[in-house]
């Protein structure tokens, strides 16, 4: 259980640091580059503020590390060691992917079984409800980073964590933009 204040403060500090490191004030960057840089830096800030205890943090960073374009920026923000760890995690996700294939094939088999049973019996309410729930859990697994292999209770815990951190990320980003807007205006005048 992480402290809310400390998490927010940590996150803010890291966000600002990483935004600085990203060098956003240089005029050479196009808008899309900037946006990607901002997103990467804010995600990395959030993940590192959260710490190692959450699998979504590692998966999020690994997702960014997998793209070659972000390599320089990530190296600058997290340091060489952090980047190596992220790259290792990104490589490790290939194994997870193979496990995903296995689970997906299981799911297909079970769905085939269910279809057969459905053909035999009219779809009972419980069955329908279960399919709906299963479908939505699948969606959730796709949304939450690093929650692919989780089931049931751990998936929900992960979502919970992730939602809280997303909320703080959005709030912090909002404060940031407004403060910067105001500051920009003030400087000009």
């Amino acid at each position, binding site marked *: *259980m*992480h*402290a*809310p*204040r*400390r*998490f*927010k*403060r940590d996150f*803010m*500090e890291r966000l*600002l640091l990483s*935004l*600085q490191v990203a060098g*956003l*004030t240089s*005029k050479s960057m196009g*808008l899309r580059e*900037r*946006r990607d840089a*901002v*997103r990467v830096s*804010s995600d990395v800030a959030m993940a590192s503020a959260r710490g190692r*205890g*959450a699998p979504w943090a590692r998966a999020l960073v690994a997702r960014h590390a997998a793209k070659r374009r972000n390599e320089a920026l990530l190296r600058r923000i997290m340091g060489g060691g952090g980047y190596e760890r992220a790259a290792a995690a990104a490589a490790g996700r290939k194994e997870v992917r193979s496990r995903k294939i296995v689970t997906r094939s299981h799911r297909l088999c079970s769905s085939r079984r269910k279809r057969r049973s459905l053909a035999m019996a009219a779809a009972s309410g419980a069955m329908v*409800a279960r399919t709906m*729930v299963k479908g*939505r*859990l699948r969606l*959730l697994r796709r*949304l939450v980073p690093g929650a692919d292999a989780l089931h*049931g*209770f751990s998936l*929900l*815990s992960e*979502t*919970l*964590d992730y*939602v*809280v951190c*997303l*909320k*703080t*990320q*959005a709030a912090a*980003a*909002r404060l*940031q*933009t*407004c*403060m*910067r*807007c*105001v*500051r*920009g*205006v*003030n400087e*000009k*005048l």
Partner: protein
Amino acid sequence: MDMNESSEKGMESNASSGPGNGIPVEWQNQFSGAFSCPPAAQQQHAMMDSFTTASAGLWASAASQNMALSSDVSAMSSAAQRGAGFLAPVPGFLPQGLGHFPVDSGFIERAARSTCFGGCGGGVMGTDAYGAAEQSMGDAFGGAAEGLMDHRRNGGNDKADLELAGNGHDEVPSSEAAGGDCSSKGSESKKRRRPNEVMGADQVHSSNLPADSANESVHSKDKGEESSPATTTGGKSKGKGATDTSESQKEDYIHIRARRGQATNSHSLAERLRREKISERMKLLQDLVPGCSKVTGKAVMLDEIINYVQSLQRQVEFLSMKLATVNSRLDLNIEGLLSKDLLRFPGAPSSSIGFSPEMMHPQLHLSQPGLIQGGAAGMANPDVFRRIIQAQLGAKDGSQQLPHALNGSFSDVSQMAYPSLGSQDLSIRPSQDAFQM
């Protein structure tokens, strides 16, 4: 005007804290600028003060903490007058928007463990400028969380007690031992669960923990028995609990009181426990995701959760885009654009903006194309900027009234911008975001 007096006292105490020298980060510069206010740059800092006041006001439930962030006396008085009207709604609003912090069952045991977390944390974090704002944020959460905690207490949640029995009773003796240990906060920080660990909630829980241990021990019993009072709600006889306490603490695994008429098979009991854990989690999620209190059933809940996660992700993406834009705009020459357009709208009413976003819409027609690329935040900002510019232009004429009016309105607008943003964000409308592009 109690707030004014307390605000001035707070200010004097804070006036001694100097600016953050050498802090490269602009955020901290702004906050430290709010603290040290050289008279030459008074007007500029007046606005920053009100803004920090306003932005802190969103988070803080206590007015005095709010006011303590600013060090400008004159700005404070006007901001206090304006802010007083708005701080009342803000705490009212706050629980809806931000107060939905779930209470984890594991939180209960950990809260007991770190009883002085709030005190230590407050002392540690209260010193720097950052920490002050964050502290007020945290206290706001604490206030909301306290309300939630009490609600859960009164609900007589046996599931929470079960969890306690499961997770807590190894830690109950250690929690008593480590109760006064502030360093336990460090061990808490990187643990997994809820962001609810705040002072008030801690005190609530440390007082409730003895009651809980009594309750949980009541729940622990042999698996074979069935209870004649069917349910496992809290409030069993405490005398029985006292004798069982020691036994429960020695056990490693959970004894669950079987309900009347249910199978006492070990498998079904384990399954029931698992299901209850899952429903516990769902309840927490329900508290976290706004607008899910009426929804029952896993499927619909999951639907709402998915929508919420998607909307949050979209928000973050949009905000990062906006941040990137702002950063690029900082270099460009925008004030030419601004001043031309703003002079066209001289007489903006200062307190006409209500909480409803509909009233913001007409002001979007301000032609500031380069500055804000849309969005609810952008909806507030044009107005804000307009007022700032007006104030600056007015201040150069030497009028003292306008900056104060500006500060007040600025704080109004900022406070309103955030609640209106919040109210928009919270309604989950996947097809129509709160941000208009």
